[in-house]
């Protein structure tokens, strides 16, 4: 299912329109994956102008009455014959393939010559953005890859980054490392993949993320994520667990 991860309130609004269009074109559910920060944030929003909907894809499958002019339409998900169900699955995966081809989306910042690429989506990407700029100021060739679609995952962008000399990826997340495997699959051994994350509503400071970038730049892993198999092995280093930002009681 296409999943969109906005990093601003404006983007959250804009993505709704795109998500509807993709849902309509491919007959698939789509999801807007906002996080607790983005979801509760107030920012000005400009809604797009109304548009003409007459060019939306035709819907010959719709169950809106046969008007006695066509054979009746049926919408169901029950296939009792294994052959029929297998064919349905193939047809669906054909659709997924098209979505993977056409709808990967990401934002790149300072990536042209990046050796260390921070990968972050949603609110985490806003913190990572500052940290990457600070790293550049310190002479580290860091860049930011912000996935806008989490599925399809922006693998083509990661391919290009690897081809252009990225040697290390650092997944910065506001969760327990759920994205690490996506990054590792896309990197496919061409660079190291590390993880720095906080959860539960604790936000890392840009300084903490910068420290993680510096650790990676020095060639040390932040955590032993190259051995990632179980989620437990990608927990952030204990020294990072106490944040300078704590939620007020």
């Amino acid at each position, binding site marked *: 299912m296409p999943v969109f991860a906005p990093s601003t309130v404006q983007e959250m609004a804009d993505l709704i329109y795109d998500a509807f269009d993709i849902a309509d074109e491919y007959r698939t559910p789509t999801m807007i994956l906002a996080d607790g920060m983005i979801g509760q944030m107030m920012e000005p929003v400009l809604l797009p102008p109304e548009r003409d909907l007459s060019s939306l894809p035709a819907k010959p499958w719709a169950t*809106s*009455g046969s008007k*006695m002019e066509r054979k*009746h339409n049926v*919408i*169901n*998900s*029950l296939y009792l014959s294994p052959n029929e169900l297998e064919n349905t699955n193939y047809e669906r995966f054909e659709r997924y393939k098209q979505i993977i081809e056409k709808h990967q989306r990401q934002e790149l910042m300072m990536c042209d010559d990046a050796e260390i690429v921070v990968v972050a989506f949603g609110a985490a990407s806003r913190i990572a953005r500052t940290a990457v700029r600070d790293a550049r100021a310190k002479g580290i060739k860091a860049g930011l890859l912000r996935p806008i679609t989490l599925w399809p995952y922006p693998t083509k962008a990661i391919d290009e980054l690897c081809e252009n000399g990225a040697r290390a990826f650092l997944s910065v997340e506001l969760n327990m490392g759920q994205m690490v495997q996506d990054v590792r699959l896309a990197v496919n051994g061409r660079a190291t993949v590390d993880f720095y994350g906080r959860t539960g509503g604790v936000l890392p400071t840009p300084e903490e993320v910068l420290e993680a970038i510096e650790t990676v730049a020095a060639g040390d892993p932040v955590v032993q994520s190259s051995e990632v198999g179980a989620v437990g092995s990608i927990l952030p280093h204990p020294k990072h667990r106490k944040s300078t930002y704590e939620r007020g009681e």
Partner: protein
Amino acid sequence: MAKPNAGTITLPEYQQERIGSQIAADETIKSARPHVLTDVVTNYCPGCTHGIVNRLVAECIDELGIEGKTVGIAPVGCSVMMYNFFNCDMIEAAHGRAPAVATGVKRVHPENVVFAYQGDGDLASIGTAETVHAATRGEKITVIFINNAIYGMTGGQMAPTSLPNQVTQTSPYGRDVSKVGYPVRIAELLSTLDGVAYVERVTCDSRKHIMDAKKAIKKAFQNQIDGVGYSLVEVVATCPTNWGMTPQDAFQWLRENMLPYYPLGVYKDVVADGFATAAEAALERAKDCPIAQQKKED
């Protein structure tokens, strides 16, 4: 528009084979398959009430001439394959979600006639929330509810509607109300909701009751066509297979045990009460409540 294809018809081949010499293929038959029913053999057990009610719904659609604008929502349960039995547009909903799907179709296409057809496990167990909220929202849909006091499709487990002490696969010593509580009377329950226009409970154990059931189903469709509001017909039904009885014994058991617990009758009918819509009736019921009487300007 669609008319029942009565008159002289040639029996389909599979019927000629089965009926053989008893009825010649060119004999005149007065009552034929309604147009909105497809020419397939259903999966219902012999003597099952589902078959009768499918037929009644089909006759009503034919007689009202609404096949071309009707959208039916099939449940999960023995009637899950209903989308293969009907010639109108059909959707198969997830278990219990037929009223939610019907709501979506009706709101997007108010000109369509939308009906949900659901069993008691579907409507009164997993889908209770959808049922109650579609009713209280006053969705302008028609619901046909087959209450056979059991989960038929999955092999006869206890349903919320199973009677006290009724033996089922999951209540082998009889339904123990001290542990699992009491049956739900859906018609009574929904009749208290302001969003509801019409609720009637019927059954199909005799020719007369079948004709009454048809009248109720037709009214539930007519109400939708007239914009009166949410209408539900509860059919007290049998499941001979999982009750472990012959169809005749099942109807006898229904008369002895089901009907005293689920009395037949009209539980709400705003039209009979002199209102044009459920909304008008709701306004009158709340006549002493000032805020409910405020007119909405838009």
